[in-house]
C-alpha cells in the first residue's frame, strides 16, 4: 500500500504543471480512476472541504488521502512523494545556476523571464477576480478591491491582519434564518 501511495502522488508531482490546483485532475485520475481508493463523490467532498481551508491544496489532498489509506506513515509518504522530487530538482537547478552568478547571460535570464512571470501573475489575478465576482458580484468585489488596496498598499497593513479580520467576519456574521442550514 505505501508503495502505491508513493507512486500515485509521485506521478502527480512529476506530471502536473501550473502549480498544485492545476494537478487536481491528475490526483482524481490516480485516486478515483486508477486505484479506486474513493468514489467520484467522496473525492468531490474531500476537494471541496480542502478548499475551505487555507494553504496549498494538492499537499492537503496527498496528506489526507495518504492518511486514509496508510495511516500517519501514509500521510507523510503521500506528501513526500508529491513534494520531494520537484523540491530537490528546484534546488539542484539553482545550484547549477549559482555557478554562473556573475555572468552577463544570467542577468539576461532574469530580464527575459520577468515579463513572462508578470503575465502569469496577471492571468492568475484575473482568475481570482472572476471567481470572486461569481460569488459576490462586481460591485462588492470592486469594493473589496479598493478597500484592500487602500489598507494593504496605502496604509501598509500586513496582509495577514486583513485576512485574519476577514476570516473572523466570515465566522462571526450572523446568518439569516433562510441561509442557516448546518
Amino acid at each position, binding site marked *: 500500500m505505501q508503495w502505491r501511495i508513493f507512486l500515485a502522488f509521485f506521478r502527480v508531482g512529476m506530471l502536473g504543471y501550473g502549480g498544485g490546483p492545476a494537478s487536481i485532475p491528475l490526483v482524481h485520475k490516480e485516486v478515483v480512476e486508477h486505484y479506486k481508493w474513493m468514489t467520484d463523490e467522496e473525492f468531490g*467532498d474531500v476537494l471541496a472541504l480542502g478548499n475551505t481551508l487555507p494553504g496549498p491544496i494538492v499537499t492537503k489532498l496527498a496528506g489526507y488521502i495518504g492518511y486514509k489509506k496508510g495511516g500517519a506513515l501514509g500521510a507523510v509518504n503521500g506528501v513526500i512523494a508529491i*513534494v520531494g522530487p520537484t523540491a530537490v530538482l*528546484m534546488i539542484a537547478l539553482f545550484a547549477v545556476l549559482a555557478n554562473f552568478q556573475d555572468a552577463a547571460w544570467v542577468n539576461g535570464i532574469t530580464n527575459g523571464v520577468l515579463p513572462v512571470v508578470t503575465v502569469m501573475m496577471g492571468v492568475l489575478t484575473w482568475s481570482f477576480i472572476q471567481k470572486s465576482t461569481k460569488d459576490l458580484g462586481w460591485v462588492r468585489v470592486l469594493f*473589496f478591491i479598493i478597500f484592500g488596496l487602500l489598507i494593504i498598499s496605502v496604509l501598509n497593513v500586513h496582509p495577514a491582519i486583513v485576512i485574519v479580520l476577514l476570516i473572523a467576519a466570515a465566522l462571526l456574521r450572523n446568518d439569516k434564518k433562510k441561509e442557516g442550514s448546518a
Partner: protein
Amino acid sequence: MIVYWNIFIAFFLPGILGYGGGPASIPLIQHEVVERYEWMSVGEFSEVLAIGNALPGPIATKMAAYIGYETGGVFGAAVALFATIAPSLILMLLLMGLLYAYRQSPKVKRLTTYVRPIIAVLLGILTFQFLESALEGAGAVQTIILLVGSYLLMEKWKVHPAFVIILSIVYGILFLGS
C-alpha cells in the same frame, strides 16, 4: 537558530492564510521573503517563481524548498517545507469530521468567498511589482514585446507555460544579457 524561526514564520503565514491553493500564497510568500525579511529582491523572487513554474509539481512547496535552502541550508529547506505543508494538512486531518458536518453552513462557505478578493488584490500588487522590475531590467520596448508575446503564446495559442518560460530564458540570454 533565529534564522530557522524566521524561515518558519515566513512560510507558516502564507501556508495558513492563503486561500485558493498554493498559487494564492505566492504574494504572501513574497511579502515575507522580499519585504519583511529581505532575503531576496523582487527580481530574484520572480526568477524563483519562473524556474518553479518551468518545473512540474506544486509551486508553493518548490519555492519554500529553494528559498529555505538558500537561507538556511538543507535544514532550512526542511523547515520551510514543513511550515508550508503541515499546518493546513493537520487542520484538514483534525477538522475533516467537523467540516463535513458543517459543509452546508454559510459560515464555512463564506471563508473562501471573503478572503478570495483580498488574495486577488495581493496577486495584483505583485503583478505590478513584477512589471516595474521588468521595465527596469529589460526596458519598455523589450518588456512590451515579451508581455504581448508570452500572453499570446500562453493564453491564445495555449502553448505550455514551461515552453514559454524556456523560450523567454533563451531570448533573455541572447538579447538581454548585459
